[in-house]
């Protein structure tokens, strides 16, 4: 069976509602967090979708990083570099962890919005040949006390929350195991290009076992900068612990 790799990392801040304070644009936050200009920026559209986020994206330490600012949440995401028309994953999990850990203090420093919840999330993936292998992968990762039996079932999902008090705060530690069928659609775009490939060249499918760790605090009055830092640090620590308990054996965690 293949190696577990990182698929997505995300730090999320949930502003207090209502909080009438001005919210920074995604581009401003991006620059403050990752200390460089984004490659792309889209301001909040005034038409089309209601309350659509402003969005800034670029690259940082070999990863694609993005910031989106929505009225009720602010997301800082890490995703794999796009290397080819395939399922892209983050190979270097040590680097992934380092960037996530480095991003936390920058986010805490950069944020001017009053928040009452914060979250750190990471999703890991392992590409397999078929559902049977993916289910076997899940069985190796699942807590043994549930004694699940899986063979060639499809679309397996199990999610648990193991909340507990951490310091003065109550925190949620959510783990989700799932087997996914991912489709990758590749389109060539350019002047005068007529793509003559058949469907098989356009669409590839991948059976992927995934483990998602989503850790956050329950809503509180407001998080001070120290508390915000504490929550995100504990949430990231929870990701490390969670991946260890799920037997993912990720380097750098």
């Amino acid at each position: 069976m293949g190696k577990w790799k990182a698929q997505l990392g995300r730090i999320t801040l949930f502003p207090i509602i209502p909080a009438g304070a001005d919210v920074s644009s995604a581009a401003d936050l991006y620059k403050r967090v990752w200390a460089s200009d984004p490659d792309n920026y889209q301001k909040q559209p005034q038409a089309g979708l209601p309350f659509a986020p402003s969005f800034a994206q670029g690259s940082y330490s070999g990863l694609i990083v993005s910031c989106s600012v929505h009225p009720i949440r602010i997301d800082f995401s890490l995703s794999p570099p796009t290397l080819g028309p395939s399922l892209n994953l983050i190979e270097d999990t040590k680097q992934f962890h380092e960037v996530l850990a480095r991003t936390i203090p920058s986010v805490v420093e950069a944020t001017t919005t009053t928040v009452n919840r914060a979250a750190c999330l990471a999703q890991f993936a392992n590409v397999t040949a078929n559902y049977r292998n993916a289910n076997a992968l899940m069985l190796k990762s699942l807590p043994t006390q549930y004694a699940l039996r899986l063979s060639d079932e499809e679309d397996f999902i199990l999610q648990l929350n193991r909340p507990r008090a951490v310091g003065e705060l109550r925190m949620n530690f959510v783990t989700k195991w799932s087997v996914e069928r991912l489709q990758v659609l590749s389109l060539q775009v350019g002047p005068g290009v007529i793509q003559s490939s058949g469907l098989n060249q356009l669409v590839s499918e991948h059976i992927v076992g995934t483990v998602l760790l989503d850790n956050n605090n329950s809503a509180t009055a407001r998080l001070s900068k120290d508390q915000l830092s504490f929550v995100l640090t504990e949430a990231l620590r929870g990701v490390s612990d969670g991946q260890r308990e799920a037997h993912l054996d990720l380097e750098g965690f």
Partner: protein
Amino acid sequence: MSSRSSRDRRAALTTLTYTSGNFLPGVIPTKLFSGSGTTIDNSGIVFSGSSPMPINWSGSSEPPETHTITTTSGGFIVSGTNSSSALGILYSASNVITLGTLFSSSASELQAASYMELSEALTELYSLDDDCNDWKIQPPVYNASLQVAAALMENDVPKPGVFIHGRRSVVFNWTIAGINLYLTISKSKLSVLLSSPEGIEMRTEFVGGSGEDTNRFFSALGSAHLISPPEPASSFSVPSDK
């Protein structure tokens, strides 16, 4: 949308790659207070060719060739770069479409369309000329009302009617079983008032930062079977004494 210069159009081929499947944490139910899964569950995709303004790019004399795909469904957006192998990836949620999903998706689309009107009404109130001083809502009130409106939409609450008392607050209202519900939103306070023909039935308020989780209130509103006011009242109006 296409705003590329002819020089950009001569750029190398770009491959766009879309990944679908249960890829994002967006599958965490949005009303699950323990998760941070997407709270932006009203699906909609904005595919904007090369349109996003590349701001202040550095290190290259050429502007980046961008292909940006934006989805609020998974809350995830990725775009290509200026290399010939540039890729954009769209991660969408859920590889199993159940009947329930289909219905809720369709309902969400309707909800999003109606909330677009509300968003535009709020923006109109905020963008009034300065000589409409009594009507033009203050920026903090605008921001707070957008937050509340987004949270209502998130929780599938029918679009409220909207009116103002002045610059310092916005009022959303609905009816429920002959009772009117008013949410008055100011800079950092949310007042809730229920009134019937007999008088005020209930009044309370949430102050931002008080520790009360207003998301729980919005979630509860989502199951309260509120009714949007009749259409003519759903556009904002200004009290006659203003």
